[in-house]
């Protein structure tokens, strides 16, 4: 049973319930439509919060494992309550705004960052039924995701600017330059997948890979370069090590969020972990068949598609964490050089190869 069917059942039940109270069917349909949007919007935020709770714990444990430590062990069995303790700690902290900071910009910076992150979740195809609103993404999911992703840096810039601090501003400028640069190879890799699937809809890209694991994009040889490009630029877009120069602790004192404490700092971190999950989800949708089961379509195990999608995403998240705790941070010039001298030319090569594959009729 897919998530979509459950949604339809709940809707029909609610209409029946309201009809019993004497509400006209037309009005109750409308109310439920509005309610669906509200629930969908709430689910986007909840997904980010759950991602942050799980990933904070996971990150500590993974880093511990890689560095031959135990990681958190004190809070609950094997430290599983560590994230909750972290959340409570952040909530109880004093909210400090520097005297010279722009109070309004300082406040809306993290809100904007989180809002933009949540907005991109609207087009993620969780299951066969489609996105959170239970509809398809109007045929422009890829474009919308890329558009909203490019707005993420505005939150960073507003926060860094509003702090009125040299470290923050430097971090914000670095972040903006980095995100603008790595967007290009990311979009080039996306273009290859779009050409393969002949649609801009994320749900359509999953449909295109319908079948067992053999039909997925990552097993097509001309997709190997886009896979690598997308993974690297995805990690760079979400400012994680080895690409975390906007918040480099050792040189910029945490960069754009130097002046943030308590809940506002937590908002930045929520959004960062939300973005991590988002990149993993989009990667799974583009190259690993999204909600499809590896054993063929329809799924012989009869599991909901969302479980497969989350399992694939978790795999990607673990790879990204593994990279974070293995590689050192890049220098600014190395980072820019990698984007402009290596990845963008490679992106054009991948696009050319993809076009050739289509012309030759192999796709």
């Amino acid at each position: 049973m897919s998530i979509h069917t459950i949604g339809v059942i709940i809707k029909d039940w609610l209409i029946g319930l309201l009809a019993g109270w004497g509400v006209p069917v037309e009005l109750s349909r409308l109310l439920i439509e509005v309610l669906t949007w509200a629930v969908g919007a709430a689910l986007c935020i909840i997904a980010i919060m759950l991602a942050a709770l799980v990933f904070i714990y996971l990150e500590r444990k993974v880093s511990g494992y890689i560095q031959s430590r135990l990681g958190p062990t004190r809070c609950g069995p094997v430290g599983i309550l560590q994230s909750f303790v972290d959340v409570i700690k952040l909530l109880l902290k004093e909210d400090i705004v520097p005297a010279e900071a722009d109070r309004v910009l300082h406040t809306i910076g993290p809100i904007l960052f989180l809002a933009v992150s949540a907005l991109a979740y609207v087009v993620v195809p969780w299951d066969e039924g489609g996105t959170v609103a239970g509809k398809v993404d109007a045929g422009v999911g890829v474009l919308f995701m890329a558009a909203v992703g490019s707005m993420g840096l505005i939150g960073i810039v507003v926060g860094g600017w509003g702090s009125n601090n040299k470290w923050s501003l430097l971090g914000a400028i670095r972040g903006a330059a980095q995100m603008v640069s790595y967007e290009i190879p990311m979009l080039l890799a996306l273009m290859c997948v779009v050409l393969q699937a002949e649609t801009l809809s994320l749900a359509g890209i999953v449909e295109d890979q319908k079948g067992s694991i053999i039909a997925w994009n990552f097993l097509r040889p001309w997709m190997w370069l886009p896979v690598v490009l997308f993974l690297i630029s995805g990690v760079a877009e979400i400012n994680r090590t080895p690409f975390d120069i906007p918040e480099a602790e050792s040189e910029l004192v945490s960069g754009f969020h130097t002046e943030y404490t308590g809940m506002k700092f937590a908002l930045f971190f929520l959004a960062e972990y939300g973005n991590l999950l988002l990149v993993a989800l989009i990667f799974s949708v583009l190259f690993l068949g999204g909600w499809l089961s590896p054993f063929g379509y329809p799924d012989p195990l009869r599991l909901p598609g969302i479980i497969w999608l989350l399992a694939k995403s978790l795999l990607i998240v673990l790879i990204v964490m593994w990279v974070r705790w293995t590689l050192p941070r890049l220098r600014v010039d190395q980072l820019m050089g990698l984007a402009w001298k290596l990845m963008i030319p490679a992106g054009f090569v991948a696009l050319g190869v993809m076009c050739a594959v289509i012309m030759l009729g192999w796709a």
Partner: protein
Amino acid sequence: MLFGLPYTNYVEYLAFLSVAGLTLLGGLGTIVARRVFPACLWLLVCLGGVAGLYALLAGHLLMAVQILVYAGAITVLIIFAVMLLQRHTGRIIMAENQHLIGGVLAAGFMATLILVGIFTTRYQPLAFGDTPATFAGDNVKLIGHLLLTKYLLPFEVVSVVLLASMIGALVLARQEPGENPGAAEAPEAESQP
């Protein structure tokens, strides 16, 4: 039914009012804000509102492109310019306007143009809240096809404009050999009170 209209129309109406109001508020904020940085953010609100209007008109591709190009790229570009300039000259850039008459004339001309466009277009009569069948769903393929066949020449001309502006930016930013970087700005920065 409420006031003689189906309920669905009210949702669309409310959505339109809120998005249009947001657009107007953003536009007003852009010209009223004294400092340039908040003005940029108001512009972002305005452009986002326009994207919402496109979405209401079932122009989903246009909405995504509006966000990508205007909200994502143009606003970021302006913010970049403001950030680099403001920290370079060390003063807060205020939004000043010494071209009141020219501005009024330009705005009046644009308003007339838009009004003439609105009132001379012959619209297909549709029921309120209806969308034409051809626009429902995935119209990306249709637009792409038209762009590369019927409208190929205008499409290419627009890209030449972009190329020209890119070359222009390079020429402006290029330094002659031996020229001291930042020499042009330095005296200006000192003369500020």
